[in-house]
């Protein structure tokens, strides 16, 4: 069995493969368009929401009609599966004909892929034609993703902000800060919970709480070091210790993710849920998943904000096609449609003031939906702590609360 022998050798000894640099320059856009025509772009993106899937299908139809690029949405339950695919291909030495062309990503996944050289280099996002409308001046998270510089290795696709929502029909006063939330939980035993870290939403909740409770916020922008971490997180864990016995199920179990938490709100098991998408509640109402009386709110002191992106793996087979799709997703037309709550409701990454009048007016006219806060109502944006804080927070949370007594 010579083939098996070869496989065995490759498995034991191999896994080598250099990440190749790349000759074509996105500044020469006509050349990119010419090369992209006829390519098929496999866009690996979370497929858990029908409206988002429909939006991606629409975008695919558009680039097919305009540039002859076919888009196939590979629906994932977890972005990690696409990352796993790229890692396996790198291990197998497949450095040019990879099966992932574009991937929906942000934060930790981006940092990990960048660190492992799994992304197409050099940076390309800032050379795309539609970059000129991107609002990187007032939206700093477009250039720095969870404190990791994007370096043009990923193109911004949408903005995210932590928003809470509740059912106004239940007539409860809502907290306006993490400290108030702790008191609220004590006063309403069993009616609040959060997804168990390291779930993305659960960890984000911890970060929100950490930023609010830390005595000195400036240390959070730096890598977490021994001593500083304990000092900065002491108030947070003291508050969690107080709060946990009053949580849903007495804090003996936690929902798996934000979807499970939203279902608990719908089932009247809890009274507050939260998400990173300002349109989450409106979409869920339109979809019959939440009551008509659900509304959103934020903390007046600010909530976490970040950006989500699309990135091209280092070994993408249809990299030109991927560039064309990434550029289209940033276009005023695509961004306008995406912000329409009847379609998706995801906030734009563009500076709408810089757009041609027709688009500017269209953005202004958008009715964002019953439960969606206007951009001006979303409150101050808190920036993500350095990625190392999240890792340490998740470890410490698991150590303290991951195993019931």
């Amino acid at each position, binding site marked *: 069995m010579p083939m098996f022998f070869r496989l065995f050798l490759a498995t034991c000894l191999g896994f080598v493969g250099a990440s190749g640099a790349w000759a074509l320059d996105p500044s020469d856009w006509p050349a990119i368009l010419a090369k992209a025509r006829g390519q098929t772009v496999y866009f690996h993106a979370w497929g858990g*929401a029908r409206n988002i899937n429909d939006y991606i299908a629409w975008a695919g139809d558009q680039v097919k009609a305009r540039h002859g690029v076919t888009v196939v949405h590979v629906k994932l339950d977890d972005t990690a599966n696409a990352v796993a695919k790229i890692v396996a291909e790198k291990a197998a030495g497949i450095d040019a004909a990879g099966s992932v062309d574009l991937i929906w990503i942000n934060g930790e996944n981006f940092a990990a892929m960048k660190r492992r050289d799994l992304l197409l280099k050099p940076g390309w996002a800032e050379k795309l034609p539609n970059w000129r409308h991107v609002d990187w001046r007032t939206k700093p998270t477009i250039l720095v993703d969870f404190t990791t510089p994007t370096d043009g290795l990923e193109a911004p696709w949408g903005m995210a902000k932590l928003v809470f929502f509740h059912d106004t029909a239940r007539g409860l006063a809502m907290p306006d800060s993490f400290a108030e939330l702790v008191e609220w939980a004590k006063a309403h035993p069993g009616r609040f919970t959060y997804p168990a870290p390291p779930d993305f939403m659960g960890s984000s909740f911890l970060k929100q709480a950490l930023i609010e409770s830390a005595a000195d916020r400036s240390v959070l922008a730096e890598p977490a070091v021994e001593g500083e971490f304990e000092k900065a997180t002491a108030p947070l864990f003291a508050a969690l210790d107080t709060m946990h016995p009053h949580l849903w199920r007495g804090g003996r179990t936690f929902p798996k993710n934000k979807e499970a938490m939203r279902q608990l709100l719908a089932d009247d098991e809890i009274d507050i849920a939260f998400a990173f998408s300002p349109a989450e509640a409106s979409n869920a109402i339109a979809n019959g998943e939440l009551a008509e009386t659900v509304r959103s709110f934020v903390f007046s002191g600010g909530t976490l904000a970040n950006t989500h992106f699309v990135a091209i793996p280092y070994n993408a087979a249809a990299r030109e096609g991927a560039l064309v799709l990434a550029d289209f997703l940033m276009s005023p037309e695509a961004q306008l449609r995406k912000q329409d709550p009847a379609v998706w409701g995801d906030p734009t990454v563009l500076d709408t003031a810089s757009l041609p009048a027709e688009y500017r007016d269209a953005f202004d006219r958008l009715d964002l939906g019953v439960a969606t806060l206007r951009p001006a109502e979303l409150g101050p944006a808190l920036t993500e702590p350095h990625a190392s804080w999240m890792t340490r927070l998740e470890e410490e949370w698991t150590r303290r609360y991951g195993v019931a007594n």
Partner: protein
Amino acid sequence: MPTRPPLPVALAVAPALAIAVLAAPVGFGLIATVLPAFGWFPALGGETLSLAPWRELLATPGLWRSAAISLAAGLLTTAAALAAVIAFVAGWSHTRAFRAIQHLISPLLSVPHAAAAFGIAFLIAPSGWLMRLVSPELTGFARPPDWLIVNDPWGLAMMAGLLVKELPFLFLVTLAALPQVRSHLHVRTAASLGYGRIAGFVLTAWPLTYPQIRLAVFAVIAYASSAVDVAIILGPTRPAPLAVRLVEWMNDPDLAMRFKASAGALLQLGLTATAILLWVGGERIAAVLLRRLCRSGRRFRREGPARLAAAAVVTAAAAAVFAGLAVLALWSFAGYWSFPDAVPRTLTLDIWRRELPGLTRPLAVTVGIGLAATALAVAIALACLERESRTGERVRGRSPYILYLPLLVPQVSFVFGMQLAFLLAGIGASILAVVLAHLVFVLPYVLLSLSDPWHALDPRYARVAASLGAGAGLVFWRVRLPMLAAAILVGAAVGFAVSIGQYLPTLLIGAGRWPTVTTEAVALASGGDRRVIGVYAFVQMLLPFLGFMIATLVPAVAFMRRRDMRPAGA
């Protein structure tokens, strides 16, 4: 002894082919897990062998508790399911109630694990359907009580979820084995000596039956001790069972976690092996007890409560799954539906109208891959078995466990490496690769369900045919194949169902190029919308159900005029 004619090439190479198809992917998959577990994975910067991943693994809080839960789930649910099956088969065989429940329970095999678990979770949760039925009228609850039922720390909800899926599998496997050991004759003899139904069966027929189903029991232990889908939905969370945490580490954005995840995968493998070893130890003890019981001469004639309990457990298991599916079906037509309404206030076809158009291609791909993998598996299995019949060598006798490796080794511990093997072989992402990957999981089940009926076929038919001048080929095509048609169709239906259930192999090895009903279902289910889950649970269940239906109807119609060829009960 007359010299045997040479075997056709297809038969001669069949066992080697079967072993290559099964063992090679699993073997490479395991290698690609073992190396990173010891720090070796250059693509992620691991270029020296070290024990660091193990140190990291062992330092994980609650690791042993996770392992203990998995071990307990593997052993307890299997023991409970088997006990219920024995008591039910022993206490109720040849009764009308038995036949009724038998028909009720067979379709349960085609219910996907995750769908069954989802249904049960919605049934038993404090805000679930049972509570909605009686609230607020009987309970006074206007809002759901804060009770920890689903995700309980002891894993009872998870074990119940596993049990209801293991029961039908073990039941049908046992039913298939009974005719071979002529259990009814033994039971009749025991009865004439004054033994109760259950005692008579357990003391006489069971020791003959058990060896026939032992592999299936091991497969159940392996599945229950490493289940991910059911455990995520119903299992404990602080900590979660080992397999669930393993998948979390594997999916962690921090790629360095994959080293620890690989070490964890080996721990899972060891855990499953331990569970099986403990079970084998239990078998010995049970055998000793059984002999004592036998010698004691006790007749156990007052068995009413035991019989009732067995029937109750089996019926409850079937009822739970059906009720769960029924409420999921209701969800798929629901508008907004909150506690404490027992039925949704508005019913709508929206979700079905929205989901169905997108299902055409996944359905076609699912059926195509399923049929291809099943056809290959049946062909290989038949070739292996026919070779055994002609040469008298038993493939199972020589290398029994290699063929069943994919059933015994937890999927999470080798799928990633298997993907690597396919990539290195240069057939990544092709439909051929997906079919081969499915074959790895389909073939053992087809072999498992085919080999017993095959060996049970009276060899004298072949001898009679040969004495009438039929060659080996003619005997195969005109005697064995038609006589076993029913069993072959059932084996094919089982294989088809297994193929449809594959998620990770389809996604990873097919690189998302071949969306199936299951990959779509899992992706959409991650959005947590119960109504979408209801739609997909139905579609996912429909295909295997059709498979089983064809497998029952075709022989019934084809052999309408040949009573003894018809499958029992049809």
